[in-house]
């Protein structure tokens, strides 16, 4: 029992460290990547004893600043809701990771450890449920500010998130029809197989349209460019207008955590999660017949590494998109969500169903 709790705590620590570090580092990535894309140098000034470490200390500086800055609260604000708003937001962004599998099974001392925090058999549904809650953090924060601009930002945010919530669910139905399960570990395992003996059965190949749609919707869910109509702090003023210090920091963090989250879900659903091509539980089995036996811990390591790399790739992709595309207008966001993504997803489901039926 104690052992079990210990393992869960370890896994929890791993996931939280994984997520929060990625989230924190993303602020650095954001700066540096955009700089590289724009022929700039990027943040490099923060230094400790003269060591600058290519700007990595900025992350720390940010954190210090966020914590020490005056946390300002408007006189008219709803005290309680204003305070907990950012917390709600960041909480629901984090808890989604509970169901993401980051490896298969690790055997330590004969004990099988499922490399997933919470092996829920309704994994995908849980994800959506949690994602659905994220909107509360935003809306509560916006409304509790008692600032009309913030409220408008909040309304834009909630309209956008709720709209895309629908699309989010619909886009992956095609995939789920193929996987025949909603348990994420199962979905990943399903993708371990090959097609015609050599092509990994990753979701992106099975559902290319679903993949693109899901990615789009996912980015929209994270409220970042090009879907940042709720925020747009420099032009249209966002829902966290009245927040400063850590309150603001938590909203920022939410965005980044959601970015990681979207990457993780995308990887899990469409890129084979922790799967490494041709890597079975006992080692590699290449299509041309060669095999390479590996210990269980090595396999697990490769799997976790594979998952991490894939997530990182998607983070990079999302950053690239964020620094490439201009912001959609609010009406464009709505139109895209309801008039294009949703119908296309439905058609995708139809076609998938048709093919599945035909193949049977």
């Amino acid at each position: 029992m104690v052992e079990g709790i210990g393992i869960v705590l370890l896994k929890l620590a791993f996931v939280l460290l994984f997520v929060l570090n990625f989230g924190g580092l993303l602020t650095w990535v954001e700066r540096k990547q955009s700089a590289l894309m724009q022929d700039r140098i990027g943040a490099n000034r923060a230094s400790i004893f003269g060591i600058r470490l290519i700007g990595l200390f900025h992350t720390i500086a940010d954190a210090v600043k966020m914590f020490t800055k005056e946390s300002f609260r408007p006189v008219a604000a709803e005290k309680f809701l204003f305070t907990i708003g950012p917390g709600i937001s960041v909480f629901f962004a984090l808890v989604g990771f509970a169901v993401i599998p980051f490896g298969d099974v690790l055997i330590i001392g004969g004990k099988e450890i499922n490399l997933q925090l919470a092996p829920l058999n309704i994994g995908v549904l849980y994800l959506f449920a949690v994602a659905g809650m994220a909107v509360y953090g935003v809306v509560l924060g916006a409304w509790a500010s008692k600032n009309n601009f913030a409220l408008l930002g909040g309304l834009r945010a909630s309209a956008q998130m709720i709209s895309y919530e629908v699309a989010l669910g619909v886009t992956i139905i095609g995939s789920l029809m193929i996987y025949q399960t909603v348990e994420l570990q199962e979905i990943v395992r399903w993708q371990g197989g090959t097609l015609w003996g050599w092509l990994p059965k990753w979701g992106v190949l099975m559902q290319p349209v679903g993949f693109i749609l899901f990615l789009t919707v996912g980015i929209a869910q994270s409220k970042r460019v090009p879907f940042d109509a709720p925020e747009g702090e420099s032009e249209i003023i966002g829902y966290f207008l009245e927040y400063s210090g850590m309150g603001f920091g938590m909203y920022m963090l939410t965005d980044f955590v959601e970015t990681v989250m979207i990457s993780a879900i995308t990887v899990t659903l469409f890129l084979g999660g922790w799967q490494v091509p041709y890597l079975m539980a006992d080692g590699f089995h290449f299509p041309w017949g060669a095999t390479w036996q590996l210990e269980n811990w090595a396999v697990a390591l490769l799997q976790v590494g594979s998952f991490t790399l894939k997530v990182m790739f998607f983070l990079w992709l999302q950053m690239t998109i964020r620094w490439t595309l201009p912001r959609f207008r609010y009406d464009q966001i709505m139109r895209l969500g309801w008039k294009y993504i949703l119908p296309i997803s439905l058609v995708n489901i139809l076609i998938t169903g048709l093919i599945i039926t035909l193949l049977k």
Partner: protein
Amino acid sequence: MNIHDKYKPLTFWEKLYLPAIISGLWLTSMHFFRNLTLHILRALRLRKTADGAVTIQYPEFLRPLFPRLRTMHRLTKRDDGTPRCVACMMCETVCPAKCIYIIADEKLENPEIEKMPESFDIDLGLCIFCGYCVEACPVDAIRMDTGILEISNLTRKGMVLDMETMLNLEPMQDRYVKYTKEGEIVSQEYLKQDLSK
């Protein structure tokens, strides 16, 4: 009238949007990878030039300022050292940020002037550097050519400039671009600084 008429109708590929996104992503990605490589090479001392970035390293290297740039305010003086300001409060009136506070004083010893500020404060914490005060001033008493851009303070009160301070500021000519009569920029030494140092 449909205002979109004037636009060329989008082709199918354009309407699809994705190819455009991908080509955009391609462009930015190429920059990313090229610069990433160059930066790494430079970090490993394999390259010396500063390719891959156009950034000027600000506190070490200063860009020349263009004459239209509005920097911190100063008050000009008459020949006898008194402020040129006549406390007409035009700047205060026009100021959209309401950050100028003038209290006028009567100077009867010189009836040609008659009026001078007793105090003249600008709260830089509120100032939006629109330059309206300079435009509005009928006697050229306030200018924004000190070249001072780094304005920060630990207290709100410290952000308030008083008359004494502003009178003692000088225009920072060196930092401004100079033009030839034909309007060409002659002084560009800052732009030509070698960034590899």
